[in-house]
């Protein structure tokens, strides 16, 4: 980060550089606020040519770069470097093209997830992946994290809904990958780029597939007297040949917290609650809805409510969508985890988590994308009580290890970033990590893009961080988190 580098940046047109410390501080962390670093300089290019010029200058001067979309990520993927340039893609907000006939939209990386659907809604289309932060998170960030959402059991992740990417490599080379034609010849670069957490290239253009809006939607809510019977009910729904658009579970602490917070009409005394969303054409949804009702009742549901009108549907979803802030009212701080497990082990995993809860003396509430096994335990603690932060972190690490012990993964959708870099050493052995490093070398041989994130070096698996929320002072308090 020499004066020559600075001068070269200064000469670039259509580039805003943020030098003022107070303005740089805005970028000190992403949604993982426990880790922060005020970036030495922030670049906001307004055109692709300006971005390309920035990358070329950094490449020539060997200055590392961190790409940032909306900064809503939860794993520290966009945490700045002390000795690198933070590159914000916030000015790339144009929807470039909508092809109604081919059902695709081509957008710049800074377009928000929800804005894509908004741009095509009047044509009866939508963009399916819907991470909880969709009103703020950008499509570029979604590609970097391979974001999911509550509907990915049926509609897939970002990876399944993107058919083209234009990227700039670490030396500024532009590569256009277009898969609109569906045939893949040779190595699947789109697959490797999704979820690569900004380590392989800058996304500058995204072509997404659009789907026709379903004609009809139904939501069913069922209460259960045990977690086991709720888990069995999920299996029974799948066994009946139904793949719901969404299938969510909450445990008792989460139910009660949500009920206290938004009064969604949830059964307070239930040990577990399932929310099941079905969509399709009208007759199909009616058919499925009747079938799922009887399956849930047979599986031991003690209460059931169903809704097809928009108002009741949103009430039923409200408690689930408010679960994070609701749990946040129970204690000054909470720490959100993100593991995925084979669903058959749900009861055992929840028991193991409950045992750890007793061991650490910290409460935990569980919300769960039950259809696809993605668990979000929320550990409650109080940072002002000495030792509780450390306990919460140790508890979190134990939960990730429990997920691994039961054949799961340390991250279902939040990404590794800086947060889980430690646990990566447990999930993958040296051979596997070396393969990841080889992939990185193919794209970014000089390791200039987001170094230190996502993939631990073989001899450095020591860092640790976490998403901590203190007295509602989280980074994006207005965003729902589920």
């Amino acid at each position, binding site marked *: 980060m020499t004066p020559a580098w600075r001068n070269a940046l200064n000469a670039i047109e259509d580039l805003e550089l943020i030098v003022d410390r107070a303005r740089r501080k805005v970028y000190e962390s992403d949604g993982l606020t426990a880790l922060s670093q005020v970036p030495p300089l922030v670049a906001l290019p307004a055109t692709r040519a300006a971005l390309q010029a920035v990358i070329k200058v950094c490449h020539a001067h060997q200055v590392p770069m961190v790409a940032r979309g909306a900064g809503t990520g939860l794993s520290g993927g966009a945490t700045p470097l002390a000795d690198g340039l933070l590159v914000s893609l916030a000015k790339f907000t144009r929807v470039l093209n909508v092809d109604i006939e081919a059902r695709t939209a081509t957008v710049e990386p800074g377009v928000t997830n929800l804005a894509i659907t908004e741009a095509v809604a009047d044509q009866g289309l939508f963009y399916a992946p819907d991470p909880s932060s969709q009103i703020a998170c950008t499509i570029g960030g979604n590609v970097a994290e391979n974001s999911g959402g509550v509907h990915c059991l049926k509609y897939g992740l970002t990876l399944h809904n993107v058919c083209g990417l234009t990227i700039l490599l670490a030396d500024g080379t532009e*590569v256009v990958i277009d898969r609109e034609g569906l*045939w893949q010849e040779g190595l699947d670069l789109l697959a*490797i780029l999704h979820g690569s957490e900004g380590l392989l290239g800058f996304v500058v253009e995204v072509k997404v597939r659009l789907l026709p809006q379903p004609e009809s939607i139904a939501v069913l809510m069922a209460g259960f007297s045990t977690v086991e019977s709720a888990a069995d009910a999920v299996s029974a729904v*799948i066994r009946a040949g139904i793949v719901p658009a969404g299938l969510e579970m909450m445990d008792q602490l989460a139910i009660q917290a949500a009920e206290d917070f938004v009064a969604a009409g949830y059964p307070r005394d239930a040990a577990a609650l399932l929310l099941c969303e079905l969509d399709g054409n009208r007759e199909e949804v009616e058919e499925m809805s009747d079938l799922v009702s009887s399956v849930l009742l047979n599986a031991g549901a003690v209460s059931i409510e169903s809704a097809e009108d928009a108002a009741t549907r949103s009430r039923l979803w409200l408690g689930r969508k408010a679960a994070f802030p609701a749990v946040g009212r129970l204690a000054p701080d909470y720490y959100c985890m993100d593991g995925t497990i084979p669903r058959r082990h749900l009861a055992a995993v929840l028991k193991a988590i409950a045992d750890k809860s007793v061991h650490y003396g910290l409460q935990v509430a569980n919300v769960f994308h039950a259809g696809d096994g993605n668990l979000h335990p929320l550990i409650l603690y109080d940072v002002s009580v000495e030792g509780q932060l450390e306990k919460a972190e140790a508890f979190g690490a134990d939960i990730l290890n429990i997920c691994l012990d039961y054949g799961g993964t340390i991250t279902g959708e939040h990404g590794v970033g800086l947060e889980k870099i430690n646990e990566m050493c447990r999930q993958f052995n040296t051979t596997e990590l070396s393969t990841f490093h080889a992939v990185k*070398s193919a*794209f970014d041989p000089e390791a200039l893009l987001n170094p230190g994130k996502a993939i631990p070096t073989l001899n450095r698996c020591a860092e640790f961080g976490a998403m901590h929320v203190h007295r509602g002072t989280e980074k994006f308090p207005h965003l729902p988190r589920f």
Partner: protein
Amino acid sequence: MTTRQLVEAVKTTIADGGSIRPQGGGTKAHFLTMPDHSVVVSTQAHTGIVHYHADELVVRVKAGTLLSELTEILAAKGQYLPAEPPAYGNAATIGGAVAAGLSGHGRPYAGGLRDFVLGLRMILPSGEVASFGGDVMKNVAGYDVSRLQVGAMGSLGLILDIALKVIPKPLKNIVYNIACEREEALRLMQQLGKIIGVSALSYREEKLWVRLSGSAQSCLQGARQLPSDFKEIDAGLPQWEMSQFSGPDHLWRWDGKPSAALVQPGVIGMDWGGALRWLAVGTEGLSGLDRDRVTWVKRGLDPLPKLTTRQDGVGLLQERVKRQLDPNQHFINFPSLRLPE
């Protein structure tokens, strides 16, 4: 055959200086791979289901397991592979299907084979065994090296077993066809592709085939939107067959938007609602077409037409990934090939 035996076979071949071509049933070998001096390491004896949890929509299967056998095991639980990977012979294996990355009629509607790969275990060019992805639906730990193997034709190592997402079979499938010229077929495919419940649109041997899938109700609703001269056929949709490819020597595939005009020469068949078109035509007939949309099918033909490796950013990146993951070229090369300009 155990993992250990396969590792031994790989290591021995490497020690002998051979370049390895992993192979399952070999049903796709002569039109997907070029004649070379590689040594086949067969996965055919590495068979069986590792685990199958139908309630969780996940199966993990060893690479040498027959595609037909896997299909039967899934069907017994009312499930299937939505990508419908085509088998070109009874010996076709799931490992071969994944390595070839071919998807069948359902590709535009249900997704491609790569969309359903959750994880896999493989022997790397170093001879070491590694596991990527996992057995769960959502997993963003590490680069997606397992999906990278789909369509890699074994160029990055030998696949040992694969975890796949499976889906409940549609409650009902109804197949219709109509005899028509290709121009009419494409026009109909473009029109019918919008009907909810359409799960295949395929044109071959002067017949357009339509499949509707879903609940009885939704099939009925879809059927009402078909022109009245479509005939319901009391059978499944015909799979892509080898015979389709054994005829003409010069066979290319064109892929692009279904809405693209039928300007390609020598179209003998179409699939994926018009997004995939088979062209039986000599090299000279292809001038004027976008080079990146036209690829050669029969890599086993001798002599091959003059082709070059893809020279754009994608081709160069593919080559760099191959070079990094297999620096000593212990496994076959499978570059993207293009018509020279």
